[in-house]
């Protein structure tokens, strides 16, 4: 469904990504793990057209979307939850959610999805008229996830969605991800919480300083000695 081929990204001459290849099959959860600064966010941002690719291609359903502007990529059904919340602090919770549905015009379906988000995150409903900037960090993260869901995406890319959430909510977020797959969505998940991510992932990639070093089914990676040592904190 989504294919990334030989993706390179440079920041002012410094190579952050050096030839990434990803295949994301329809209705799968694919996870990308790696240490801080490995290039996980850069990968997602390059797919969304937020940073310039110095080389490489992104195919979506066989179509080359490498050079499309971000808004067109979003309109095609790819959405990203950016790292670090990034809610619109000056807008209300409800407005943030509505902006998530910016590219859609079916008001009934939008209202239905809004209810769905509110029932998933009742906290947001209670605070729908509050300015997003006044929400707690965890609430802002819920809002960022809810806002992405409002675009009714086919592919949802999440950059550390569980960051800063209490354990119960982390569980909640992972349950949502599983639910989304059940509903037919495709997910590319970037997580610090490698164990949890690999547990639910159909397939996983391990990124190290801009290059893929390992890939395989989630369960297989979970059992891999190198992964255990480097990312799961297992003692040798």
């Amino acid at each position: 469904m989504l294919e990334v081929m030989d993706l390179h990204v440079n920041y002012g001459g410094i190579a952050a990504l050096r030839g990434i290849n990803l295949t994301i099959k329809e209705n799968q959860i694919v996870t990308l793990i790696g240490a801080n600064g490995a290039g996980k966010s850069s990968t997602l941002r390059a797919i969304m057209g937020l940073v310039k690719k110095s080389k490489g291609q992104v195919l979506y359903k066989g179509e080359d979307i490498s050079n499309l502007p971000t808004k067109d990529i979003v309109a095609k059904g790819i959405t990203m939850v950016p790292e670090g919340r990034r809610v619109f602090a000056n807008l209300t919770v409800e407005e943030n959610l509505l902006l998530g549905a910016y590219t859609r015009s079916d008001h009934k379906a939008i209202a239905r999805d809004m209810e769905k988000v509110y029932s998933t995150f009742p906290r947001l409903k209670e605070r729908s008229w509050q300015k997003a900037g006044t929400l707690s960090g965890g609430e802002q993260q819920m809002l960022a996830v809810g806002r992405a869901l409002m675009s009714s995406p086919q592919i949802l890319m999440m950059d550390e969605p569980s960051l800063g959430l209490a354990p119960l909510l982390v569980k909640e977020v992972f349950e949502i991800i599983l639910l989304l797959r059940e509903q037919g969505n495709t997910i590319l998940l970037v997580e610090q919480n490698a164990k949890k991510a690999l547990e639910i992932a159909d397939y996983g990639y391990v990124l190290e300083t801009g290059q893929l070093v390992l890939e395989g089914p989630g369960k297989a990676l979970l059992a891999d000695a190198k992964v255990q040592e480097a990312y799961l904190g297992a003692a040798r």
Partner: protein
Amino acid sequence: MGNLSLFLQHLTNGISLGSLYALIAIGYTMVYGILRLINFAHGDIFMLGVYLTYFGILYTAIPWWLMFIIGPALTGVVGLLLERVAYKPLRDSPRITILISAIGASFLLQNLGIVLFGGRPRAFPVPHILNHVVKVRGVSINVITFIIPVVTILLLIGLNYFITKTKTGMAMRALSRDYETASLMGIDINRIISVTFFMGSFLAAVGGIMWGARYPQLMPLMGVMPGLKSFIAAVVGGIGNIAGAVAGGFLLGLGEIMLVALLPRLTGYRDAFAFVVLIIILLFKPAGLMGSTQTEKV
């Protein structure tokens, strides 16, 4: 004439001038809110709005009232094109570069005005129904003095509705906060920026026309002073904040008229008044009356 009626007359004059400053200040503040750019050419866009309308009335068969709408619309398009030509190519450049481009655009429009329209002042053809004096309880007031605040308030209501209730207005507010995330929502950033420039220029042109009806002398440099004072109004109100720009505009307009009225000996310092207010406000509230020092949760 009693003291009260004299005061009322000054008050209406002040409100009227304040309305004009407010209309121009909105353009500065909207553009700043979205691009973090001080659009130095905004005062000259105001001038252009008056001239376009002037020529439309004199040299076409279009009735004046229709020209009062077409003129601002054309000016809006000029403002939008200005952004496309002078600012958009520099969007990723250091802020100082785009600021210099704005100063250049201002000089260009002024000199283009001198070349195309001539330096000689022209008289704005004020329609009679806007330009006669009525007496209300001993206070003689030019009709236009009433019309200006009324039109301004209607425009402000419309603008407020647009910003708070429409999808584009919402996108505009989102964009003023976070470009990248706004584009992740599927917002067409270029379109929103164009809309912003169109609206700011439109409002400035409406202000310009009413300015022309009130002080019917057109000159290519007529935008400089009102532009500068409106910019100060936007800063005084808290740049980036539309309500602040309106408040700043009224404060400056009223203050200026009252200064001249109550302390006639200071009439010569009329134009300095805005700067004094600016300095005082910035001393005590550096972010302006309604400006917020943004706090971000990290």
